[in-house]
């Protein structure tokens, strides 16, 4: 009920991160967590968008940039 905003952000981020795993299976756990409060859904969607934002940007890298360990930058 009285989750601190930053704790909620962290929890939502953890869910968004775990769901991104192709072998994620705790859908009922996610359901129960989302049902606790509408704020959980909003935080979850924001976290999902953060992850998609970063992945989409990185996907636009030129092929030569894709392995940073081999390139001096």
């Amino acid at each position, binding site marked *: 009920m009285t989750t601190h905003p930053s704790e909620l*952000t*962290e929890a939502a*981020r*953890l869910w*968004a*991160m775990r*769901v*991104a*795993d*192709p*072998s*994620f*299976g705790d*859908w*009922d756990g*996610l*359901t129960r967590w*989302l*049902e606790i409060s509408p704020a959980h*859904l909003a935080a979850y*969607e924001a*976290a*999902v968008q*953060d*992850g998609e*934002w*970063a*992945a989409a*940007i*990185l*996907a*636009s*890298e030129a092929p030569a*940039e894709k392995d*940073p*360990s081999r390139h001096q*930058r």
Partner: protein
Amino acid sequence: METHGSSGLHATLLDNRGRLLRFLAARGAGSDAEDVLHDLWQKIAVAADRPVADPVSYLFRAAENHMRDIRRATFSREKRQLDWHELGNAPEDEPVGERIFIAREQLQHVQAALAALGSRVDHVFRRYRLDGVGQAEIASELGMSLSSVEKDLQKAYRTLAELRTKLNTE
């Protein structure tokens, strides 16, 4: 538990209907969950010709992706309406060169933020998000524990979320 074609998937859907409806309702469909599940099935039935290894996970994953699609569609519709009201301020109205410049700059920020977390975190995040490799597989590839992989990912996610907020408010 492998399932072939849409009839097997449909049986799985019927067996798990309650769980899927509850998920969809909590995931933003609310009282429209039944309609959303119906639409989702129409979408799946057309596409599902290949065998599905884990039909339950497949259906939940499809439900999650469907809710993301709905949210994206709603967002771009609202944005179009907003742009209509605020003529001239829409990012779409920026010259193409300007948009390419912004995209290039964002990429450099993301690359720098990941590089600053160290090459292992950088690599783990890329394997996970760009290559679609699961945490357990990354852990065995790198000889790390599952919890270390998760901690690395958390660092990357947190840093990139903060970066996104910073770039949006600049």
